[in-house]
């Protein structure tokens, strides 16, 4: 089982690798500038968070947009990459009116998918200035919070997911459950 993590410049990207290894999955950080062909042997892909905004142009994200649009394997985007997925799937990304930094409470809308087993509500840590709006995007909204309407999303007809909060930090206790669900999805 091999799930690499695309390093998008965020502080927690390294922690995603650490969490995957803790769950017995082989992982490493890879650059967003890799060739798409290099991803043949993987079971799934996680794309990390980072300091940029998707509204400032896509040039900073290397091959990530191309991979997200065309991949045949499961993908999970976190924070910035959740926004990237939301935008590529036709939603909008806007500045949050009440941005979340630190603790937030996630309200689950769709409990049977990647958010299986986390309960109706759970505490998570987030840190984002931008947020996704559905606006006719080709995805369903799996969770929300009182400040942010798209906390988790799933692409229509494809195993492509985004979470606005950080499942990889220790202050998101249910993060491991979500990661396990994603790993199970990658097992196919």
């Amino acid at each position, binding site marked *: 089982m091999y799930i690499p993590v695309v*390093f998008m*410049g965020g502080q927690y990207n390294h922690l995603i*690798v650490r969490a995957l*290894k803790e769950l017995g999955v082989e992982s490493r950080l890879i650059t967003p500038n890799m060739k798409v062909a290099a991803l043949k042997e993987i079971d799934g892909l996680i794309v990390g968070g980072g300091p940029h905004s998707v509204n400032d142009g896509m040039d900073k994200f290397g091959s990530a947009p191309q991979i997200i649009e065309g991949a045949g394997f499961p993908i999970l985007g976190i924070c910035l990459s959740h926004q990237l997925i939301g935008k590529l799937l036709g939603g909008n990304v806007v500045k949050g009116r009440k*941005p979340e930094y630190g603790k937030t409470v996630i309200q689950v809308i769709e409990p049977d998918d990647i958010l299986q087993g986390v309960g109706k509500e759970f505490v998570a840590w987030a840190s984002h200035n931008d947020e996704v709006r559905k606006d006719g995007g080709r995805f369903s909204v799996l969770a929300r919070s009182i400040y942010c309407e798209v906390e988790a999303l799933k692409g229509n007809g494809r195993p492509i997911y985004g979470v606005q909060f950080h499942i990889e930090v220790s202050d998101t206790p249910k993060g491991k459950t979500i990661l396990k669900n994603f790993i199970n999805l990658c097992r196919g």
Partner: protein
Amino acid sequence: MPRIKSLEGIAISASDSENSFDFNPASFVKEKVAEIRGVVGNARAAIATSGGVDSTACAALAHRALGKGLVCFFMDTGFMRQGEVEEVKKLLMPLGLPLKILTVKDIFLRELEGKVEAESKRLAFRDTFYSILGEAAKKEGCEVLIQGTIAPDWIESSGGIKTQHNVLEQLGVDTFNKFGFRLLEPLLDLYKDQVRILARYLGVKVDASERQPFPGPGLLVRCIGPISEEKVEVLRSATSVVEERLKVTRPAPKQYLAAVIEDERSPSKKAVEQAAAQILPNAKVEYLRWRATGVKGDNRVYGKIAIVTGEERGPSELFGLPEKIIHKDKEIVRVVYAVDGGRSVKEGKFVIIVRAVETRDFMTAKPSPIPLKVLKQIAEKVKKDKRVSLVCYDLTSKPPATVEFE
């Protein structure tokens, strides 16, 4: 702001020697001892230790690899805690590490006095530190400098959160041309909890390896705004009070510290006070004059510190305040609550901020629920120094604040 040259470079450095999650100190030591011997060869190497867990574990590791070929320096920068030099000696003696102490307070004070902005202070500290160290190492015939940089240091620096004093190569600094040494950083892929396991394995005394993390630039990064000898002195004694009291508080917070800032305040917006009043009725919210470092959405920010005064409450009842207030003024990165109902000492000119957090790996952190009673005891003792007008408790998590202040 210094940034890594390319994302590619960092991705490769992070993956090549990636540790398995089940950290095994024995095999780590074996691998790194061989690596250090390979790099240093028959030359001599220097290490600068601050007495913190990272540099002490790294010194013990390097000593195992090089024996007498290692020269260990301790730099008394003037930003050390009370009794730090003695503590460091006590810590290193049982490891058989001979220590050379460089007393260089005056140089640091001269280079830093009058500097205000966090990043410019960090850069001045870094350049002064390595210039002195490079010279001292050269005198001892050392060509290699070993240092205990760990993962969060370079992750935060390369993400532009803040310039860590000990991160050089990841930022593209050519150490050989600039400071006259080659750099070796054997702990680069470890997190704090793994370093502690390593420290214990190498025989670093448990009480020592459980010591409060203390950053290399020391009290400097807890002096918010301009640096002066007096301000550092006030902070040093407040730090002793805070550490002594919180050390015996149960459950013990993971990290606790004090910071100092001038008691110069300006009023906040009406909307901010109204938001605060939802949690603390009749709260008064003001801004302190100098800004502190924070992190919002993976970006470093240099934001306002809001000081909240009002009725006496246990801090844990007020942990919702930062969110409410920051939603009304996005420039705020930190919210502190005045202990003692905000009763201040008239002639005082400094505010002491007490910070205590719960964290696994320092990548995220939340404020500790220290009982009000304990904070009041601290405040009473700290305010015996009449230069302190007020004692506050930091209510902010990381993000949006950081654990340290600058």
